[in-house]
């Protein structure tokens, strides 16, 4: 598989990549069209506002209840899965998770892996890790297959190839697979399927993610629409599921509302075409299913978020992608601009715990705090509030002890001084009025170029007289004060 790194990753930061993305008309159109359609699908899937809001509240409370007992539930999950014959592995880092996965494959002398869609495996960069060790990893989700074929990373957590339109996919298939160029979507899917079908039969190991891990019964629940998840988890002799520790819920009853929230928020579906519930390897009297099932539970910074009462809410996430679908920033710059596994609003609040704020110093600022994400989040994560908190952690000095991994990435003595001055100005009425007087009196001297603002605007010119002035005069005349 080619190791081409997308061009946008070669540039240094969010703003540079954003500039490249914003100049790409095709990309802008692809995202706008796709996001508009997804927003409409979600809206149509929740026709009753009262029901929707009630369900979101329920989802929030279910996740909060699960998180309040997270260590206990994880132990219960491990015990139940072990009873069911599933081997459970713990990984604090992605490196450890990869070693575990590779170890399992090695024990079977495996060389071919087929994967269902898994964002945790993207976190681990599992494909690259295994490829370096001579194991071929093939993505079987159509979108993932497309981005893998093009040497890219997913640009959306639900629809990995959403940045491409069908013409671009047609060209890609033509270039990489040598097939005739066709932009008939059904034909394109059939081309992908024919390639994948053979791989399902040949693979030594199937890898998948997990949507919900149910502690009470030791069940791994996986939703998908293509059947590739079921194939990946049942056809090969070994199934390895990888997931983050926050995916555990107490019982099957809890899953019902969460599943409804997930599929309706993500794609506007009442339910996905496939809902897989995996509770163990093939039993002696069964005809099919894998001989071994493993679960790798990955921390990768999640316990850091868990340790902070406010940030813990980040772990409510059920990975529906609605926040990015509704985000005016994501819609314009696309997923690759974020430069990390998780793009969009959820990416901005979860990535700092995984890689540290020094790696993603601009992520918290890349938001107008418009609140669209928080408004649609099915489990009511207060995303704007958490972004605001990350901004606070990001400007702290080392002495102030930032509470998020590698916080203080944007600490600047100069900017702090500017805000101190702003504080003085706005807490000293005399000084503030002097400022108003000066700014209005010398309005003609307002500079034409005021930094980044004048890239998009003309410079704002103060009025001739301030409201303080006008109001005083008006109210004196009208008998107010």
């Amino acid at each position, binding site marked *: 598989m080619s190791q081409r790194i997308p061009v946008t990753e070669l540039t240094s930061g969010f*703003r540079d990549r*954003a500039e490249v993305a914003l100049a790409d008309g095709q990309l802008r159109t692809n995202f706008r069209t796709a996001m508009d359609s997804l927003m409409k699908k979600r809206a149509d899937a929740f026709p009753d506002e009262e029901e929707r*809001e009630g369900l979101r509240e329920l989802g*929030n*409370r279910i996740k*909060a209840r699960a998180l*309040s*007992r*997270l*260590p206990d539930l994880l132990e219960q999950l491990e015990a139940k899965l072990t009873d069911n014959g599933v081997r459970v592995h713990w990984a604090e880092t992605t490196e450890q998770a990869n070693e575990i996965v590779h170890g399992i494959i090695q024990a079977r002398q495996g060389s071919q892996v087929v994967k269902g869609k898994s964002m945790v495996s993207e976190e681990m960069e599992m494909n690259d890790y295994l490829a370096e060790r001579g194991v071929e990893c093939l993505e079987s989700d159509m979108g993932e297959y497309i981005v893998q074929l093009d040497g890219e990373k997913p640009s959306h957590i639900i629809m990995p190839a959403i940045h491409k339109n069908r013409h671009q996919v047609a060209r890609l298939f033509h270039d990489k697979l040598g097939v005739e160029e066709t932009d008939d979507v059904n034909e394109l899917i059939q081309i992908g399927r024919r390639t994948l079908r053979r791989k399902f039969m040949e693979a030594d190991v199937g890898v998948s993610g997990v949507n919900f891990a149910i502690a009470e019964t030791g069940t791994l629940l996986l939703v998908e629409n293509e059947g590739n998840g079921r194939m990946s988890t049942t056809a090969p002799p070994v199934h390895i599921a990888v997931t983050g520790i926050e995916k555990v819920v107490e019982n099957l009853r809890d899953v019902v509302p969460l599943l409804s929230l997930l599929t309706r928020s993500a794609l506007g579906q009442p339910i996905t075409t496939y809902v897989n519930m995996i509770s163990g390897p093939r039993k002696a009297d069964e005809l099919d299913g894998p001989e071994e099932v493993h679960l790798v539970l990955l*921390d990768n910074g999640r316990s850091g978020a868990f*340790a902070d*009462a*406010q940030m*813990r*809410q980040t772990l409510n996430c059920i990975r529906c992608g609605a926040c990015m679908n509704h985000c*005016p920033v994501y819609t*314009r710059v696309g997923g690759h601009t974020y430069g990390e596994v998780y793009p969009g609003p959820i990416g901005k609040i979860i990535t700092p715990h995984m890689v540290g704020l020094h790696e993603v110093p*601009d992520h918290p*600022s*890349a*938001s*107008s*705090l*418009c*609140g669209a994400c928080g408004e649609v989040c099915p489990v009511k994560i*207060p995303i704007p*509030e958490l972004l*605001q908190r990350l*901004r*606070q952690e990001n*400007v702290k000095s080392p002495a102030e002890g930032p509470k998020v991994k590698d916080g203080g990435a944007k600490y600047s003595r100069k900017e*702090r001084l500017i*805000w101190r001055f*702003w*504080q003085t100005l*706005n*807490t000293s*009425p005399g000084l*503030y009025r002097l400022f108003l007087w000066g700014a209005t009196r010398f309005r003609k001297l307002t500079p034409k170029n005021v*930094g*980044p*603002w004048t890239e*998009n*605007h*003309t410079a704002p*010119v*103060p*009025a001739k*007289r*301030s*409201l*303080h*002035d*006008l*109001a*005083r005069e008006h*109210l004196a005349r009208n*008998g*107010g004060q």
Partner: protein
Amino acid sequence: MNELFYDAAPNATRVAPERPGPRQYPAKPREVILFGTCVVDLFFPEAGLDAIRLLEREGIRVHFPEGQSCCGQPAWTSGYAAEAREVARAQLAVLDAGMPVVVPSGSCAGMFRQHYRELFAEEPDTLKRVASLAERTFELTEFLLNVCQVEWKDLGEPTRIALHTSCSARREMNTHLHARELLGKLANVERVDHDHESECCGFGGTFSVRMPEVSGAMVTDKTQSLMASGADEMVTADGGCLMNINGSLDKQQQAFRGRHLASFLWERVSGEGRA
């Protein structure tokens, strides 16, 4: 496994706050305070004055405390909580008189109602005053609509306008609904929808200067959808959005403009046309 949670507080799990019910509005008071906001103070003072006139027209005596400055939002959204808190404290002192506080900006009103309690979360005594301010704070359009229950005669010529609502106003104050209803009372005003109406204009306070590329793309899209709406002009009740949208239109050398809703409303009901 448990070592992963070495410093976790097991009982620190938060649940989303209860959904607030519909706001209960008081009877029309005799006196109010106008909190002008810093952007209106410096850039759109006429809008502030028009807000005062609209309130006076309803028989309300308006006070404008001289000590007011900024609600603290720019520092708060930039992560400078300590600086924002001191500015907020100064406003709390100025607005402490127990009268309703009317704000011609949804986002500043939202700051008072939603975010001051986050700023002062560690100060129980201050929180009581914060709660009082939150209770007394009204965005101008909701105040005119639900407290004053205005009934207007539209003295203006027929016109078509697009309404832009700031995101914090929309999501924290429901201002878009209040403004729509107010505009609906004006017989000669036709409100037209614009494409992606509920989408952010890209201002976001310091976002507009920290991320000028993305912010610029957002405001360009917003101005284009406003111009394509067929409206004669845009009105908004937020100074920040107004500065953003008009600044962009001016840079694009477009004739189309927005103006503050207070000025538009005053012109319609007073019959005082202004250039």
